[in-house]
């Protein structure tokens, strides 16, 4: 029963669903028909509308054709009218031109007539004026003629008196000229003699027959001799144009100039010779000084060979000085006073350089000897702690290098190496004590040993400026930290920083 009910219920639901579907299909069919009808109505309306548009377009075409025809007619009419208007304007213009031309001709005739009448009137007035003027002018000529006659008569009298006075003066001048001619003759002779003397003098200068040679003039006062001698030509021309006095004056000036020049050149040459001698001497002294220091005698029998102890610097400075000296000796003819002054200044620099080289050599030798002394003293101190020397000597057997002493203590099998290292700039020696035992420098003995070494060195007047007894890695650590200075940093901090600063 239950299954039947279930089946019945299912059947009812299916039938209800079928009805719903049928209603839906009917509704959709009705809807479809409505839409179809609406589309057909719309199509008809559209066709009707199109037909109306076609009619309207046909009518519009007819109207357009009519309008075009009317427009063409209108254009033709307008063209005709314009042609007529143009022709009329042309005719009017020609007519006005003709009238104006006629009027102008008439006016011209009237003006000509008027001008002619005016001219006749003026001519009459002018004639009358000119007659009166001529009469007046005639009167004036008469008066002027009378005045001129009188004036000329007076002038003639005065001129006669003046001419007489001038004749007298001319006679006096003639007498003077005669005297001058006589003097000129004597001056000319004098000028010729002076010129010959001057030419002979110049000839002697140009041919190295005087106290100086020609090249001295060019070297010490270049150009001046040429300027002076060129002025002889001018004196010669003066003589040829009978200007003997001027020629003599000119020759005197030239002569004096030559004497002045000779004096100036001699002075300059003397100054040069002095400077040259001084410069040569200075370099000779410097060379001698260098030679004397090539080997320096030390205490005992030892000698310091400077070139060896300065790594060749002595040879370099010696050659430098020698080369300059040779250049000076060969350069007597080319060098100038300025060159010599510069060479003397250079000599001062070379002298300082030589001193530095000598000092370097001495300092290096002293530093080397000190290294050995220090090493021996330190070795002795270490012996007190049972470190016996095993090896000693300069590194690479070069006395300029570090001095090393190797020691060993057999009791605890500890090796200690003392190295005295030179500073190439300050020539101070640094002591480095190294060991294969890390605790060597940390034991209580370390400070004791260090103090003993310092005391021993001080006994030999060797100043110990700084001491560090640190293992190598602690010394390296010091290089990590900055040296600090600054405002406002607490004192305690600065003190702590100082204690670890390098």
């Amino acid at each position, binding site marked *: 029963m239950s299954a039947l009910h279930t089946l019945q219920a299912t059947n009812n639901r299916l039938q209800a669903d079928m009805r719903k579907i049928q209603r839906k299909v009917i509704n959709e069919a009705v809807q479809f028909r409505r839409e179809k009808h609406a589309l057909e109505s719309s199509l008809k309306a559209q066709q009707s509308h199109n037909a109306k548009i076609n009619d309207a377009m046909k009518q519009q075409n007819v109207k357009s054709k009519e309008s075009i025809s009317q427009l063409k007619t209108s254009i033709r009419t307008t063209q005709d009218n314009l042609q007529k208007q143009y022709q009329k304007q042309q005719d009017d213009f020609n007519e006005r031109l003709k009238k104006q031309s006629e009027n102008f001709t008439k006016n011209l005739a009237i003006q000509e007539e008027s001008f002619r009448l005016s001219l006749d009137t003026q001519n009459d007035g002018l004639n009358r004026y000119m007659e009166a003027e001529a009469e007046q002018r005639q009167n004036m000529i008469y008066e002027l003629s009378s005045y001129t006659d009188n004036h000329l008569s007076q002038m003639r009298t005065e001129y006669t008196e003046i001419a007489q006075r001038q004749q007298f003066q001319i006679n006096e001048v003639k007498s003077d000229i005669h005297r001058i001619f006589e003097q000129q003759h004597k001056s000319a002779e004098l000028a010729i003699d002076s010129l010959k003397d001057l030419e002979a003098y110049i000839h002697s200068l140009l041919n190295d027959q005087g106290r100086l040679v020609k090249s001295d003039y060019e070297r010490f006062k270049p150009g001046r001799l040429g300027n002076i001698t060129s002025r002889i030509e001018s004196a010669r021309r003066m003589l040829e144009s009978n200007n003997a006095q001027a020629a003599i004056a000119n020759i005197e000036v030239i002569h004096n100039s030559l004497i002045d020049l000779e004096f100036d050149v001699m002075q300059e040459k003397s100054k040069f010779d002095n400077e040259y001698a001084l410069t040569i001497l200075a370099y000779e002294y410097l060379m001698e000084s260098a030679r004397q220091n090539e080997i320096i005698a030390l205490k005992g029998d030892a000698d310091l060979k400077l070139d060896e102890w300065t790594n060749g610097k002595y040879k370099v400075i010696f050659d430098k000085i020698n080369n300059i000296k040779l250049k000076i000796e060969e350069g007597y003819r080319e060098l100038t006073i300025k060159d010599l002054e510069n060479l003397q200044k250079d000599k001062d620099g070379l002298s300082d350089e030589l001193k530095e080289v000598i000092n370097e050599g001495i300092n290096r030798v002293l530093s080397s000897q000190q290294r050995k002394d220090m090493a021996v003293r330190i070795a002795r101190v270490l012996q007190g702690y049972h470190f016996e020397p095993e090896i000693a000597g300069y590194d690479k057997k070069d006395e300029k290098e570090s001095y090393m002493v190797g020691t060993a203590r057999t009791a605890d099998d500890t090796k200690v190496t003392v190295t005295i290292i030179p500073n190439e700039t300050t020539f101070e020696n640094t002591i480095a004590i190294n060991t294969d035992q890390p605790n060597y420098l940390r034991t209580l003995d370390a400070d004791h040993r260090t103090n003993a070494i310092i005391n021993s060195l001080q006994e030999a007047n060797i100043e110990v400026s700084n001491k560090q007894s640190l293992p190598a890695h602690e010394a390296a650590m010091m290089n990590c930290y*900055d040296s600090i200075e600054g405002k*406002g940093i607490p004192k305690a901090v600065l003190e702590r*920083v100082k204690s670890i600063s390098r």
Partner: protein
Amino acid sequence: MMDDLLNIASYQPHVTNLGPGKRFVIWLQGCPFDCKNCMSQDWIPFEVANLIKVDDLINEVIQTKDIEGITLSGGEPMMQAAMLTLFLSAVKRHRPTLTVICFTGFKLKQLEWNAAKQLLLQLDVLISGLYVDSLNDNKGLRGSSNQEVIFLTDKLIEHKKAFNSGARQLEVIVANRDIFITGMPAQGIDLKEI
């Protein structure tokens, strides 16, 4: 010729709580200050800790991937300013994007010596001033509220809030047989107990 060395207490390549991102942190050995309850007592003495060649440390940083920057702490980094300047300038030539944070007990105006001035040119952020335990407010990257966070460049300016008042983290790093505790501890925490 002696090598350029840094005396460092320790370093860790990937620390996340001493500045933005993962950072290569270097703790320098030696500090001239005497701050009460300093968290790094062992790193105060000026004694040899780890003498590391500057060149080696440069290579170490350059080869460490995935880091945003370097943090210098200590100890007192400014005591080794000259060597740190060498180190940072070389690192930046290879890794110019890395930022640098530095903790110091000095105030900015006290950093007058040349080496310190040179080091400042390499830094992006300076956290300056002494650690004062009583002013530890448990905030930000600075240890105590008197310390000043100074942005020397604007590269890390976006993290300003985190520097001044961000939440703190402690990071425990176990490396070989050592345990490192990094970051800013809160007041009263006994790190030795941790």
